[in-house]
């Protein structure tokens, strides 16, 4: 009821412009549209395999290497985290989902290392800025894991241990 009509000019104002007479009749255009949708339907009925839909849990999409999946932390050769706790990732993180506690490392070649490295996957927006920011290539999002689901919030709070051994699907249980 919000649209009041003032006169014949107002009614055509903004629409029906630039239409051919046969287009403004609309009926023929409707039939064309119906034809198009029916063409899709018939084609899809007879070529079901060609539909772009994936039968998701049975078929998995291949997103390729550019997919930003769940994070993982890289290791040094000795198995300790490559991370030096510079906190560039948590600084750049727009979702503020990374929290790191640094510690003094006793090893001669490592001055600083993370004591804790927690990511709140519920807050993460998967922007990948942490990967960009990392000066040591310590955090990557190349696991390809995008099915991240759990029935409790605590399961989404992943710690350094989990991120270093990031082999399981889903989230930690």
């Amino acid at each position, binding site marked *: 009821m919000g649209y009041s009509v003032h006169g014949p*000019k*107002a009614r*055509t104002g903004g629409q029906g412009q630039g239409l051919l007479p046969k287009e403004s009749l609309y009926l023929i255009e409707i039939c064309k549209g119906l034809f198009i949708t029916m063409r899709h339907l018939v084609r899809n009925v007879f070529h079901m395999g060609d539909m772009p839909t994936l039968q998701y849990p049975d078929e998995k999409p291949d997103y390729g290497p550019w997919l930003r999946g769940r994070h993982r932390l890289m290791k040094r050769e000795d198995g300790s985290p490559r991370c030096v706790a510079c906190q560039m990732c948590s600084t750049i993180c727009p979702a503020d989902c990374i929290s790191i506690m640094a510690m003094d490392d006793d090893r001669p070649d490592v001055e600083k290392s993370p004591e804790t490295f927690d990511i709140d996957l519920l807050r993460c927006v998967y922007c990948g800025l942490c990967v960009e920011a990392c000066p040591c290539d310590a955090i990557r999002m190349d696991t390809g894991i995008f099915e991240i689901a759990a029935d409790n919030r605590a399961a989404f709070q992943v710690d350094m241990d989990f991120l270093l051994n990031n082999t399981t699907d889903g989230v930690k249980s």
Partner: protein
Amino acid sequence: MEAVFFYVFGTLAVISALLTVTRRDAVASAFWLIFCFLSVAALFALLSAHFMAILQILLYAGAIMVFFLFVIMFLGKSQDRVKTSDWRVVALGVLSLIGATVVLTRLVGSTHAPFPAVADSYGGIEAVSEVLLTKYLFAFELTGLLLTAAVIGAVYLARREAPGSRGAKAPVVRGLTSQAATSTASSSAVQHEDVPHA
């Protein structure tokens, strides 16, 4: 069998009519009126007047009451309770009731003979149309004229003063696109001011 149906629908009609006048909520009132119409339609059907029954539903229950409801809801005043305490209203109602009772008893009481049996076609479309378009043609046409007049009146009342109708022609200014010419007259007037005269 017919008697049973008559009393059932008659009772329903009376009850719903009472509810119509006693409900304080306008929407509820309207709804009970619709119910009353439907019961009356059933009574018509029992009298073999199928066409009348259908018209009752189609026109009164189906069309007119929708308008009623539409207006009631649109005004949003269904919460405003109707005042019934005015003694003049009550008096008028009682008087009308007495008058109606007298007239009806006189009417019904005047014929002692049972109602004559009717043919199958009685009350059908053909029969009604026949009478309507021959015997009562003048009244029928007159009613049509009256309705036409009412429609014209309604259109006149509802018509808004079109902005372009004040003698101002749609401005034709060089540089204006055809779009402006087809948009509302008021907006093209604004554009008219914006475009410097060449």
